């Protein structure tokens, strides 16, 4: 295995584009090193991105959003007051990943690129309308987070392409987000179902919403029908029921050791309701 530590993304992209064998990008390493250890992935070229300037930074964009470097670990996100105030759902999703030790290394970008349908940080990013900046052999392009996962362990990134930053939009006023997952214990587990909701209010009426589900399909889902069920409402009981029905209808899970298909379909609706209530309360400025 050849270990590379380029100092800019174009070089990282060129290394990957020119490699003939198995290539992996290394940031936090909490998935890559486990896969290497298990013999699932034995890279010929390992490209460490942490020597690239800016990858460990969280910076505010000109438009009031946030640009998150690819090597920013969960513990740094969780300690960033400005980011937490704007996007608490995104931060709480990431902070559910693994232990304190894993939080010291694991990154949003790695969680996204690992391609797990149950990745806890991805529904929050999708609900937030986050985009990724991709550096590739032909330059830089920007795509929505939900366009990256292609199935378990797979992404839509082409050979030589890598994510060079995650960008969250400006939060704006009267808005809130939340992420909830179901696990059968309190900590250190993988989501059986996850759901993130982001919404904006005008008075008590929801004017914008995005709902994302995790672990109920081969990829994280952006469920526009679930968002439509609450837009224009005050999140009354009828709207919550419609939201739950739309979330359950969109869920297309498998039965595995963590939960049955029927259970996941039901819980997708339950979590959508609960996450929407929390997002609503946050949009109202209440601490929830």
């Amino acid at each position, binding site marked *: *295995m*050849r*270990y590379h530590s380029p100092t800019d993304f174009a070089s990282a992209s060129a290394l990957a584009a020119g490699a003939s064998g198995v290539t992996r990008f*290394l940031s*936090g*390493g*909490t998935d890559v*090193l*486990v896969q*290497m*250890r*298990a013999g699932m992935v034995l890279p010929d070229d*390992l490209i*460490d991105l*942490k020597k690239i300037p800016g990858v460990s930074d969280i910076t505010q964009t000109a438009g009031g959003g946030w640009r998150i470097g690819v090597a920013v*670990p969960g*513990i740094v996100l969780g300690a960033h007051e400005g980011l937490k105030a704007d996007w608490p759902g995104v931060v709480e999703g990431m902070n559910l990943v*693994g*232990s*304190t*030790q*894993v939080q*010291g*290394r694991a990154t949003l970008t790695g969680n996204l690129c690992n391609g797990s349908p149950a990745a806890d940080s991805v529904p929050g990013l999708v609900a937030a309308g986050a985009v990724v900046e991709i550096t590739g052999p032909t330059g830089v392009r920007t795509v929505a987070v939900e366009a990256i996962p292609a199935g378990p362990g797979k992404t839509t990134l082409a050979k030589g392409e890598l994510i060079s930053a995650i960008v969250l939009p400006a939060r704006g006023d009267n808005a809130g987000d939340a992420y909830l997952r179901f696990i059968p214990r309190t*900590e*250190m587990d993988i989501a059986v179902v996850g759901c993130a909701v982001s919404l904006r209010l005008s008075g008590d009426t929801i004017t914008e919403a995005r709902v994302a589900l995790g672990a109920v399909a081969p990829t994280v889902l952006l469920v526009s029908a679930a968002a439509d069920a609450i837009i224009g409402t005050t999140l009354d009981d009828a709207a919550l029921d419609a939201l739950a029905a739309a979330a359950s209808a969109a869920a297309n899970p498998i039965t595995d050791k963590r939960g049955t298909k029927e259970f996941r379909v039901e819980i997708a609706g339950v979590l959508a309701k609960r996450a929407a209530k929390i997002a609503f309360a946050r949009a109202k400025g209440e601490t929830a």
Partner: protein
Amino acid sequence: MTKVHVTTTVNGDTVEFLADPRETLLDCLRDHMGLTGSKEGCGTGDCGACSVELDGTLVCSCLVLGVEAEGKTVSTIEGMANGSELHPLQRKFIEHAALQCGFCTPGILVAARKLLEVNPDPTEEETRYWLAGNLCRCTGYDKIIRAVLDAAAEMRQEVA
């Protein structure tokens, strides 16, 4: 396999070693530096027995490559006692009999030290969540939690 020359600081001392790029920091600490206090329980970041601080961040050294330690600062269990004087956490672990086989103990001590650094007065719940990534198959955890909370209380009084 080309080995990589790595210079790093471990427990305050500058250390140089040659690492196969596939070797983890844990491998390098144990096999190249002779620092065998950090243990390998799982090798996949689940058990916490290999916990160290890397530039002040608590990490599993089995999930860090040795080559990634270049230019960084590593703190291991070997740097915890001050000469022959045990750290309060170490002393309280003995007083509370918070270990049996002892395999998880170095990792738990390193993790607990970091907890008390960032939160000198943790609740029991905060302590249990912080240490959720440190598995112990002997004690049932209760004595560990009591020892950490007792050490925290003692350390707060010392500062005051």
